[in-house]
């Protein structure tokens, strides 16, 4: 079976795929650059963690998990609506500020409210909502569950492409004034888009919290947003498969191939140098891809092919 290293490596890739898919709805279709992905992810993670660890629930575990996960997802969705309201009628600069400010605010609260979140020292006490034996077995099962969740997100995103909703998102991203003149309430569209996508990001935060079992504010740094963005941009912003492909090419390459199967040239290579190199390379990837192949490996969405398949005579 898979060893612990591979499980956590794959789990990381699956998380990035999930975040990339949700970011794809915002950035790829509606052309809203959400720089606060980690804010929603982190909110889900911490709301779940605090509820799970600090509250004395009268029932046992799969239920505690489900209830906490539900509340955390809803909280992230609500935050998404608030941020969505904030940025719906702002331009790209305003979106950058609004989303970045939100992510910063979440990180600040995670640090200051030490009585709830454990602050900078962190918070333990999280566990898998089941126990099937060894730690690796539990982790493997969690990887499977997370893959299913992300699979559902993928199916949803794919279906969005094939629906009037997806068409509306593409229209809002392509020419917002024209969409408005056709009677489309574009502000409301963005508002709800942020609600939905952020709820999904919050759910992924919950999934990650269970896998981590120990939460520190360092988990919700800008590198999470970066990973989702790099994965999506590298694979192709406009394509649902882009997030999947890009996550394997970026996070998969660094966290699985290089980390695990490359002989380390120096002693602190994998612990210190490689993670820093990874971030630096991710940053460089964003620059290079957007300068030389802005639509990533997979290129632009092909709605002509899609329409032929759906409505061709």
């Amino acid at each position, binding site marked *: 079976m898979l060893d612990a290293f591979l499980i956590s490596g794959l789990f990381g890739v699956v998380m990035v795929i999930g975040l990339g898919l949700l970011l794809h709805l915002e950035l790829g279709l509606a052309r809203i650059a959400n720089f606060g992905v980690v804010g929603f992810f982190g909110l889900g993670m911490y709301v779940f963690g605090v509820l799970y660890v600090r509250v004395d629930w009268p029932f046992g575990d799969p239920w505690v998990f489900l209830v906490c996960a539900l509340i955390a997802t809803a909280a992230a969705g609500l935050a998404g609506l608030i941020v969505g309201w904030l940025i719906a009628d702002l331009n790209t600069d305003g979106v950058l500020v609004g989303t970045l400010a939100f992510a910063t605010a979440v990180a600040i609260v995670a640090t200051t409210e030490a009585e709830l979140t454990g602050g900078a020292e962190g918070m333990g006490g999280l566990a898998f909502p089941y126990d099937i034996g060894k730690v690796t077995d539990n982790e493997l099962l969690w990887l499977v569950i997370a893959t299913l969740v992300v699979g559902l997100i993928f199916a949803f995103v794919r279906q969005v492409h094939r629906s*009037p909703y997806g*068409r509306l998102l*593409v229209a809002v991203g*392509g020419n917002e004034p024209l969409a*408005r003149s056709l009677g*489309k309430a574009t502000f409301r569209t963005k508002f709800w888009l942020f609600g939905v996508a952020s709820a999904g990001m919050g759910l992924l935060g919950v999934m990650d919290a269970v896998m981590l079992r120990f939460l520190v504010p360092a988990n919700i740094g800008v590198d999470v947003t970066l990973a989702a963005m790099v994965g999506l941009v590298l694979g192709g912003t*406009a394509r649902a498969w882009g997030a999947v492909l890009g996550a394997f090419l970026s996070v998969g390459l660094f966290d699985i191939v290089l980390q695990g199967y490359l002989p380390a040239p120096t002693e602190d290579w994998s612990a210190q140098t490689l993670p820093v190199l990874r971030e630096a390379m991710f940053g460089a990837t964003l620059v290079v891809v957007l300068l030389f192949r802005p639509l990533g490996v997979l290129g632009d969405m092909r709605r*002509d092919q899609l329409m032929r398949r759906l409505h061709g005579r």
Partner: protein
Amino acid sequence: MVAELLEAPAAPAPAAVAGPRIRIANAVKSFSGRVVVDVDDLVLGTRPIEGLIGPNGAGKTTLMRMVMHSTPLDRGTITLLPTAGGEVVLSSLPAHAMARHGVVKSNQVIMDFDKLTIWDSLLLAVAEGRYEQPYRVFSERAVFGRHEAEIRHYLDYFGFADPTAFALSAGEKKLLDIVRCLLLKPTFLLLDEPTAGLPEQLTEKVMTTIRELAAAGTSVVVVEHDLNVIWHLCEDVLFMAEGKVVLRGDPPSIRANRTVVEKYLGEGHV
């Protein structure tokens, strides 16, 4: 050219269905200190098809955009007077609410969604808001089924080659813009140079469609530089200069007017 114009049959008088009107009161718009539009009191839609003409920079397009609220007014109000009575203050509504009240405008410059095909564009125009929701991602069939017939009608009529492809030529995009407007089932339709860049045969078809629409009770206002279209189509012509409507009347009287001739048509034209 002139002879052709004179011999052309007068526009057929459509059945006397009174369409909705739009009242523009004290509407002023200036860009960096220069007054572009300054209209005291103007009612559009008193006749089924009205033409708006005038020299470049007279403020025609700006006035149209002000009605659609895509250019905010400095001051003034714009009110829709629907056929059924009552009134709707358009100038206090958001831009996306215009279409809901049946007020629709086609665009002077080419406007399109780069990533949407022709089918997409038209389905977008007809799709009801209740289907365009994240929790209804399986509603494509429903929307398609409800509207396929009317979309195909226009596709066939205007002869789009392959509606699953993207609109490529300028003419195709222009036409697509007009068809999108038609699919919104407007009660008050503003057309900003609808035939610019269209081949003659399509211009005819667009004009026929406009006449049919007007006969069915839609008020139409056409801004055009191609005066053939104006003289053929309109029963009432408004002449705009320097941000004001300076003349209004039936086509023959406008064509005979000295000011219009001097300022716009040029001496050789009559």
